């Protein structure tokens, strides 16, 4: 399947997408080698109740890469992340302006079907947010919502994603137990599985490891790495070491006069070894931030 030039639509037919396209591979193109950027933001600004939070961000994110957003708190990283699946719609008084495209899709256009958008753009939050019902229902709910009712399909999709996140052996005997009984790390992996079960093109991660203990954190991080090449991953992290370990590209944000800005965007190697901006250099060396 040739993804490269085509897919102007992000809404494939349900049969093909219902979580079941074996959810595997996109083709084995090398990560980041796709010449057409997956996500293009141009002059993207975000304001809350008229107060500017992020100003004029312009960047291009590549298919299959892991892009890490780093920078001090309050510099608009999370705002940027949430604008990608238009969760910003849910925040009262939040205004997003500028251009934001995902392939050909104009994300910010009022006519965009946000439910389909969010279906193809998964998101994981800082704290695990399992729903207060069983593990099975946590995974089935999004699939059912998007039109998959077949029990065998549901079961196979569930098993695949749980194996993908390494949770299958831990929970296969208690799929009907409340998800909230799982440990924090398990819950976060379940959230990851829940996002992956919809076979997203893009995965947004908002400090997915910061609420976890180091061991669980490591497991989740390893999982994210396995997604390289399959899903476009954008991860907000405060952990520079982590960004260096897993990031293909790094976007460095900084807050000037209370307004977040993108200072520098480049490959991880460039950012960490030859930062172009003095703020970046100071931040990565631990001098500031």
């Amino acid at each position, binding site marked *: 399947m040739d993804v490269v030039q085509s897919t102007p639509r992000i809404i494939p037919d349900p049969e093909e997408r219902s979580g079941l396209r074996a959810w595997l591979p996109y083709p084995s193109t090398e990560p980041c080698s796709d010449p057409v950027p997956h996500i293009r933001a141009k002059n993207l600004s975000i304001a809350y109740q008229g107060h500017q939070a992020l100003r004029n961000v312009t960047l291009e994110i590549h298919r299959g890469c892991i892009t890490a957003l780093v920078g001090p708190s309050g510099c608009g990283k999370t705002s940027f992340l949430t*604008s990608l699946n*238009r969760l910003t*719609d849910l925040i009262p008084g939040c*205004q*997003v*302006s500028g*251009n934001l495209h995902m392939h050909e899709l*104009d994300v910010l256009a*009022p006519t965009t079907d946000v*439910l389909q958008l969010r279906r193809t753009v998964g998101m994981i939050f800082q704290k695990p947010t399992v729903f207060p019902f069983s593990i099975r229902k946590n995974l089935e709910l999004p699939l059912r919502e998007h039109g998959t009712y077949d029990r065998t399909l549901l079961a196979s999709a569930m098993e695949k994603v749980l194996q993908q996140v390494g949770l299958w052996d831990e929970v296969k005997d208690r799929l009907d137990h409340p998800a909230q009984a799982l440990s924090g790390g398990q819950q976060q992996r379940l959230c990851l599985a829940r996002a992956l079960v919809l076979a997203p093109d893009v995965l947004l991660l908002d400090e997915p490891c910061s609420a976890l203990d180091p061991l669980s954190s490591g497991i989740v991080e390893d999982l994210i790495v396995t997604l390289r090449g399959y899903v476009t991953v954008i991860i907000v992290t405060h952990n520079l070491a982590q960004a260096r370990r897993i990031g293909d590209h790094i976007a460095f944000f900084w807050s000037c006069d209370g307004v977040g800005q993108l200072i520098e965007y480049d490959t991880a190697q460039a950012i960490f070894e030859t930062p172009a901006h003095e703020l970046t250099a100071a931040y990565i060396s631990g001098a500031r931030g």
Partner: protein
Amino acid sequence: MISSLNNISSRSKGDFLLSWSVRLLALMAGGLLLLVVSFLIHESWPALRDIGLARFFHDPDWSPIDESYRLTAMIWGTLLATAGAILLSAPLGILSAIFCHFYAPPLLSRGYRRMVELLAGIPSVVFGFWGLVVLVPIIGRWHPPGTSLLAGILILTLMIIPTIMLVAHASIAHVPIAYIHSASALGFSRGSLIWHVVIPTTKVGLFTGILLGLARALGETMAVLMVCGNVVQTPSHLFDPIRTLTANIALEMSYALADHRAALFVSGLLLMGLVVLIVSLAEGLRHRNFHVPAK
């Protein structure tokens, strides 16, 4: 340049239906007050127009047959019964909340709280009935006939203690534990801890409880109707029978006609205004109380 518009989250049919039906329901619920008030005004309009507000205070007495509509005796009855009940129940309610928090052993404290919650659930007609068959004869033996302002005060007291106690209990529970620890660390006795630390920090909560109790006492109908004797007169002592505004409505509504009926609606309107004032004061206080961060 395009900017994203809020709340065009989905054009699904279900969402459209749901969002408009909840809007409609909310509109109906919000409009209910307007409906109640407008109906009360509509029904009391004949009296306000034909009789005029002044006559409710300057007529010789309450005697609808003779077209005489003085409400003052009943207003006094209502106010005195309420005031008496508050004077008794406020200290009792607050002290028993303190008892629950600082004096009672844990098991007793839980049981006591449970008891007060049950007391709060007892219907007013049961209070009235009990007052009628137990309390009134006791007072009657002392000073006949027994149906009196005193009986009303005692029954109302019993009815509003739970309100005051439960609100006081909740606001004492909100006192930061650090206050209590640091006061104890300073060697405060239990008494002075309560008097100098707990009461001042929960002032607003206690006052809110008293206001809510006040509103309940003002609006109470059945219990006072059953134990107060319902004679229209300004009481000169505790053993005089009285009639409250609420009891007057309950008693006469069933056969009131024309201006008489409208006059009862006027007293309902009056009552509602009074109670609403108190409740909104209490609500305002309560919100303020919860929004001030405990520092």
